[in-house]
């Protein structure tokens, strides 16, 4: 009897301890179950990503079987920092199709990129401007792969009909501060721009030749914020990538040319710049790998990537 009761006591004690530890771990258990949720979610994301990449894998196999041999080797691009987003996206897309190929990119500036391709240390020189005559004379060939376009927008109530390049420069450097001086009503100009480091800002200032001379009244950290500010502030002027302009703002014609993709391709709209992948000699004289790279970049997939990062495609 004594022994039996001790056993019961021991059992009861064990149960109490177990219950206590369970209660104590209540929050822990919840936390860890939360974690498993996260892992399972990320796992399902991975599997979805796998599923998404699977067709492209098949496509690449089909591609490879279409060619005599699968491509391998490496491509080195050197050049413009402005082209970093485009170059990285294109490189990733290409390497997904051709796992044997390594596409690497260095971002040191347009001039240095063309120098590298002329000196033979890089396959491709990235340049976010047209090539200069002396660069072309030295053998560099300009292959435009996409165009970066920027729209200058004002609030819908603004009566200014357009701006010249000089007016735009004067407004952004703070020389002109009232729309009456720029063909509009007597309303002060609120100069809106992007934060230092933004690609749109560097392109805008570079094309106008006013790097680091701008007197911004508002430095906003996203395209959406610039649009909202310009739309809601009388007399505001801002710049955004061409593809995001909508009805909430008015895009001003510059030097009398409307901001449209067609005008930019035709070359009349000055607030745009070509993204060039320069080669030493024509593309047709390059290695098969580089030729295939250009076929990809200028083909459907490459141009889709270009427009997905907000650029205008080239036909």
């Amino acid at each position, binding site marked *: 009897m004594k022994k039996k*009761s001790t056993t*019961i*006591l*021991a059992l*009861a*004690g064990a149960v*109490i*301890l177990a219950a206590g530890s369970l209660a104590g771990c209540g929050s822990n258990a919840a936390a860890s179950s939360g974690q498993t949720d996260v892992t399972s979610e990320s796992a399902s994301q991975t599997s979805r990503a796998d599923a998404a990449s699977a067709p492209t894998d098949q496509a690449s196999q089909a591609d490879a079987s279409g060619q005599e041999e699968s491509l391998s080797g490496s491509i080195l691009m050197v050049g413009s920092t402005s082209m970093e987003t485009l170059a990285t996206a294109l490189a990733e897309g290409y390497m997904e199709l051709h796992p044997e190929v390594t596409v690497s990119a260095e971002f040191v500036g347009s001039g240095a990129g063309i120098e590298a391709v002329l000196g033979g240390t890089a396959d491709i020189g990235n340049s976010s401007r047209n090539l200069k005559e002396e660069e072309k004379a030295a053998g560099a060939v300009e292959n435009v792969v996409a165009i970066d376009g920027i729209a200058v927008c004002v609030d819908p109530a603004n009566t200014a009909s357009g701006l010249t390049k000089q007016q735009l420069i004067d407004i952004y450097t*703070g020389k002109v*501060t009232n729309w009456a001086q720029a063909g509009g009503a007597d309303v*002060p*100009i*609120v*100069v*809106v721009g992007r*934060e*230092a*480091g*933004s*690609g749109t800002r*560097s392109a805008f200032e570079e094309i106008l030749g006013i*790097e*680091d001379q701008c*007197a*911004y*009244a*508002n*430095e*906003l*950290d*996203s395209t959406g*914020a610039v649009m*909202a*500010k310009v739309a*809601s*502030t*009388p*007399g*505001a002027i801002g710049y955004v990538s061409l593809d995001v302009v909508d009805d909430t703002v008015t895009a001003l014609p510059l030097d009398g040319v409307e901001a449209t993709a067609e005008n930019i391709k035709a070359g009349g709209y000055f607030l745009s710049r070509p993204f060039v992948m320069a080669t030493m000699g024509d593309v047709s004289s390059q290695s098969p790998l580089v030729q295939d790279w250009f076929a990809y970049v200028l083909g459907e997939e490459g141009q889709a990537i270009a427009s997905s990062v907000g650029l205008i495609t080239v036909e």
Partner: protein
Amino acid sequence: MKAEKSILPGAGSLIGKKSGAAAERAAQIVFTACASFAILAVASITLYLVLSGTPAIFQVGLKEILFSTVWAPTAAQPRYGILYVILTSVVGTGLAILLGVPVGILTAVFLAEVADERVAAVVKPAVELLAGIPSVIYGLLGIYLLNPAMYRLERWLFRDSATHQFTGGANLLSAVIVLAIMILPTVINISETAIRAVPPSIKAASLALGGSRIQTIFKSILPAAKSGIVTAVVLGVGRAIGEAMAITLVSGSSVNAPLPFRSVRFLTTAIVSEMGYSSGTHRQMLFTIGLVLFVFIMVINLILTRVLKKGGQTP
């Protein structure tokens, strides 16, 4: 019932004798681990900030960072002076405290001493609701209500000025007003608790000696609640100086001297606004700004805690 009674003391003695010491030790380890989490967090944040914030100091120089007024991180010759940014945080927080604390304390007096129950029943939940509103909502309201109103005031005040840069209402004053409103609930709730904690005998003695209600409030009750009110101010300063989301939307974010109608950038918004596209020294500088903010808050906390201790001793 009887069985339970006989089992439980037995179980207790069983735990006490055999696994009791182990359970005690285990519990102590768990408690210590929990407590050390907070310390671990503070220590790792400090370590991380110092490690990632110091490289830029050695590259740029502490004197240039703290005493130069030019912030041009992406220029050909980058400048990383954050004097205006520091001054903006000091002036902005100071003005918000000057504006918010008197209103907050008087509201607390009103709730605790003056208001009849029906009015208090409306005001009190309103204040509590204010405390629960996310800061980004304050920012949105600032954009849609405060900025346009401020822009009208700005255009009226500077209608004859030839040199003023119009900001569209996004300026220091807007940010200060938003901050002042944001610290109100903190100041009101803590001050009210402090005022209610004043022993009724103090109030009774003052009234018995012939003091009026106003005299009693300002000469007896508020001095007696001083330490609690100082705590309220400390927490208010903490909230104001650390706030980023709301003021990044209303302050304009250009680096300028902290004048009421200039677009300004705070220490917090300086980090937020340029984190997206920064790289190299520019990015390291943003961590340095974080380090400056961290040191700043530490110093203010130390000073105010000292004041708080003194305040606690005198009554």
